[in-house]
Every structure is written in structure tokens, then in C-alpha cells.
């Protein structure tokens, strides 16, 4: 087994303070190997989304260490975290989070713009990513002109357009019907097949069945680790 791409030690996250403090994570440990396909399950409020947000560098832990490729992310500054989110991590949200009034193509191009890729190359790569999710013919459509499943596929195209090593997905099928869910999972499976590390959160056992390994988060800690 290769060196872990994600290593989390004694991770804690507290929202608020004093009597109203909410302990979302209470000393969580997790290791994800390179190229692994991991599903995180757990009830609402168990802290799994908080965990994934921290893994995606969208949020910072209150205490504990998050080592990405062996380097503690606490050492990174704002600009380097931006670079990480841009190059290394692709994040897929449950609620898609596309920019409204902006075409699918422009949404997919967005990370490349911030990466400083030239217009011509950007267009080609964004179209290739849309091709991969089967939405090239919808490139000129705005998010409100797309179905939920199509929006999620655009969001996945955006997550993979910079060819990140890690793809994180927070309940990617949570808002989708069965048919769209299967499309989305097929894409994630293919991403894994090309050697990417995929971590996803889900409530559904059949979605979790796509993963090599399933962990359960209970009360801010990992409860069981079952190799698939």
C-alpha cells in the first residue's frame, strides 16, 4: 500500500463557544490511501460533512492535524490553500453550487481561469470535461435551464477539469433521482478507475457499495472501518 494521501489525526471542530458550543468532530482519526475509493456514512449531525469540508480545505479544524500528501495543512496560508483547492482537490457539493446566470461551459472553465490557463486551452479542457460527463450539447445552457442531474454533472465536470488527484463529493446523489444518481456514480467510478482518490459521503447503501471501503461517523468519531 502506497503512502496515505490523506491523514487526519485527532481532528476536532467546535462551532460557537460556551454553553451553546457544538462539537461537530471529537477527535477523529482517518487515513485514506492514494487511489482509494472511500465512502463515509453516518446520520445527520454526525459530523461527516464537517469532516469532508476540512478535507477539501473549505474549512479549518479547531484542533488536530490534517496532513495532505504528508504536509500539515495548518502550515499553508490563504494563497496556498487556494492553490490546493484549485489544483489538488475537486469538490462536488450536494446542492451543486453552480454560479447562476452563467453558462455550463463558463462554470466548468472557472477553476481554469483561476489557475491562469489561457482562453483557448481552457475552452478545450472544459469541453473535454463536459464530454466526459456527457453534456457537451448543454455547454451553452445556464444552470436554471438544466435538470438537477445535469447540474450535478456540470459540477463534477468543474471538479475534475483541473485533473485533481483527489475528488471529494458531499452526498453527490442526495438531491437526485435514481436514474441521475446512476449517471453520477458511473462518472465517479470512472474517475476512480483513472487512478484518482475518491471520497464521498452518502446515506444510501447502494451508493456506498460503489466504494472499496466504507467508514461510519458517529458523534464526531469513526465508528467502524470495513474493507469492501
Amino acid at each position: 500500500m502506497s503512502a496515505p494521501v490523506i491523514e487526519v489525526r485527532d481532528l476536532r471542530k467546535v462551532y460557537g463557544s460556551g454553553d451553546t458550543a457544538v462539537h461537530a468532530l471529537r477527535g477523529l482519526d482517518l487515513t485514506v490511501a492514494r487511489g482509494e475509493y472511500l465512502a463515509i456514512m453516518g446520520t445527520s449531525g454526525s459530523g461527516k460533512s464537517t469532516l469532508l469540508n476540512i478535507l477539501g480545505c473549505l474549512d479549518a479544524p479547531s484542533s488536530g492535524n490534517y496532513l495532505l500528501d504528508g504536509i500539515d495543512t495548518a502550515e499553508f496560508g490563504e494563497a496556498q490553500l487556494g492553490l490546493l483547492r484549485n489544483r489538488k482537490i475537486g469538490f462536488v457539493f450536494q446542492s451543486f453550487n453552480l454560479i447562476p446566470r452563467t453558462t455550463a461551459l463558463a462554470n466548468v472553465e472557472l477553476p481554469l481561469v483561476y489557475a491562469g490557463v489561457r482562453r483557448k486551452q481552457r475552452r478545450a479542457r472544459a469541453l473535454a470535461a463536459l464530454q466526459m460527463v456527457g453534456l457537451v450539447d448543454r455547454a451553452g445552457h445556464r444552470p436554471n435551464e438544466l435538470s438537477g442531474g445535469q447540474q450535478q454533472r456540470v459540477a463534477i465536470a468543474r471538479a475534475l477539469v483541473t485533473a485533481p488527484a483527489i475528488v471529494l463529493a458531499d452526498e453527490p446523489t442526495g438531491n437526485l433521482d435514481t436514474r441521475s444518481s446512476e449517471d453520477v456514480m458511473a462518472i465517479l467510478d470512472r474517475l476512480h478507475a483513472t487512478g484518482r482518490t475518491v471520497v464521498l459521503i452518502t446515506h444510501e447503501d447502494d451508493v456506498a457499495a460503489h466504494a472499496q471501503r466504507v467508514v461510519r461517523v458517529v458523534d464526531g468519531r469513526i465508528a467502524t472501518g470495513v474493507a469492501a
Partner: protein
Amino acid sequence: MRFVEVLAFAVRGVTANKLRSALTTLGIMIGVASVILLIAVGNGASQSVQNSIAGLGTNVLTISPQRAQAGSSTKPLTTADAKALADPTEAPAVKSASPVVSTSATAAHAEVSYSISQFLGTDPAYFSTTNSSVAEGALFSTDDVTQGRKVVVIGATVATQLFPTGNPVGETILVNNIPFTVVGVLASKGSNGLQDADDTAVAPLTTVQNALTGYGSLNQIVVQATTADTLDAAQAQVTTILDGRHKIGFGQTADYRVLSQQQLLTARTATTDTFTVLLASVAAISLLVGGIGVTNIMLVTVTERIREIGIRKAVGARRSSILGQFLLEATMLSLFGGALGVAAGFIGTRFTIAGIQPVIVPSSVLLAFAVSALIGLFFGSYPASRAAGLRPIQALRHE
């Protein structure tokens, strides 16, 4: 991240909500335009006052009666006073002294009747003293004054009112039902913002006294000094002569007042300055209100788009590129609105407003433009910089 890309995002941001962008622009435009326009009106008023007073000449003294101290008697200014002032041995610095009576009168010609605000009776020297010249016809002569002929020289406004089409020279008009022959029309002097200098008619002193005002006191004696340099000497001589004739002792308040054009100018400038300050404060309020409107819209724009900021950060945008985008959006709206405001201000000042030809003050253009731009920039960038400083997940969860 190149500047062109940030600019492209900003352009898309501005055009994404056209109505809101248009309203923001409109707010800035109205603020800027009103500042430029109102200050220009105030400035125009004060300039026309200065011009009209300067038009009277710099070597002129105006003597008018004033109430003396309680206890002492008040003697009216008389034609004899005016004659005494013109004495070349007693007052060598005085070139001429014109007695002036003034009244308002209703003039009529054919079916038209017009109320002249200043109907003056004086002598021919008055015209040269006040730099008045005729556009048509001729002035009346000293002989007309001696004979008390019913002739009149009318101002441009009176001419256009009574004779909209024909030539007034040689025509007869009825002034308070007394027939006067129009011998000339004065060249236009324009409005000074407070009164129309052309709304006047000038007739021989004796005629006006005989027909309209009676042989009472004079309203003014207008004195012309020999040169502008002898004005002070003339003022001293005039004071000495009148003190003697009116028996004003040392330290007593005189029953007349001598004002030079310079003093008149100072007094009138003070008045128009007050006027300008008043207009400027109204303009400043409208700029402030416009600025608050812009502030409000900028705050709403940014707050509403905090989620968008979160998305951009989640895909790797740096704080600086987000800040740059919103700063550019605010700059474009402010500059565009400001430019439109300047244009509207310039167009507006081409029209005569309430009888005043506005004159643009260059610094007001700069000030209005800068203030509006700064308001837009500050209130656009401040909430954007706060939002850009959030962790992506905080911005994404923002409701």
C-alpha cells in the same frame, strides 16, 4: 490570474443584473449632475452680478438718501445738490453728477400694456456714467431736459414686450396714460440674476418729475469721477460738499450715503455668495443621498453574492482576485455613472435656468466625480473584502 480575466468577470457581474446596475448608475449620475449644475447656477448668478456692476464703470459713485440720526432733520437730495457736486472748482475730481428719480410705471402701446420696473428720470450724462449706449435711435439731449419734452429711451426687454415686431423708434407709448415718444432703444445689458437690467426706461428728469413723481427728493445722484484713480478724491469732495449743504456736523450720521461701485460689488457678491453656498449645500445633500443609494445597492449586491464568492473560493480563487472583481464592478458603475452625470451637468448648463446662464466651476466637476467614485469604491469593496476573507464554507452557507 490575469487582469483581463478579472475584468471579464466584472463585466459579466455588471451585465448579469442590468436593472440594478442601471439604477446604481442613475443614482450616481443624478448626484454628480446636480452638484455640477447647481454650483454652476450659483456661479453664473454671481458672475452676471459682477458683470453688470462692472458694466456700470469703475469710476462711479452712487449717492442715495438714508435716514439720519434721531433728533436731527433729514434733508432730501435735490437737483441743487447734484448741480453743486458738478462744480469744477469745489469738486475738481467730479466729471459729472446726474440726478436720478425712479419709479415704476405702466406703459402701453396699441393693445399691449407692460409694467416697467424701473422708470428713470435723469440727464444725458447718466448714459455715459452707466456705460449705456443705444442700439437703435438716439439718446435724449440736454435740451430735452431743459424743455421737459416727453421723450423716452427704453430698455431691450421693454422694447420686445411693447413692440414684438415693429421698430419702436418714433412710436408713441402711454406711460401711466401720458404719451411719450420713443427716441431710442438701449443696448442689452442682460440679467444680473436678481433683476433684469433691460427692464427699464429712461426719460428726461424734468419730464418725469413733472408727469410722474413730482418735484420731491431725488432717489439717487450718480457721480462720475474724472478717472478711476480720482475716485477716492471724488468721494471725499462729494462728502465735503454734501456735509456743508446738509449741515452735517463732525461725528454726526449723514442723511445720505455714498457708495462706490467697488463697495456695491462687494455687497452684491456677498449676497450671491450666500446664494451659491445655499445651492451647493442642496447639491451636496443630493450627492449624499445618491451616495447612500449606491452604498445600499453595493451592500445588497455583495451580500446577495456571498454564495458566489464562496463558490469561487472553493474552486481556488484567491482573495485578491475576488476583491479585484468586485472593486472593478464598483469602479465601472461609479465611473460610468459619474461620466453620465458630468455629461448631464454639461448639457444642463447650456440652458438658462431661472434667468441665469450657469457657468461651470471646473473644481465642482472634479469634486463631484471623485466623491461619487470614492463612495462607490469604498462601499463596493468593503463588504466584498469581508466576504472574500471568509472561509469558503462560511460564504457558501451564507443565507
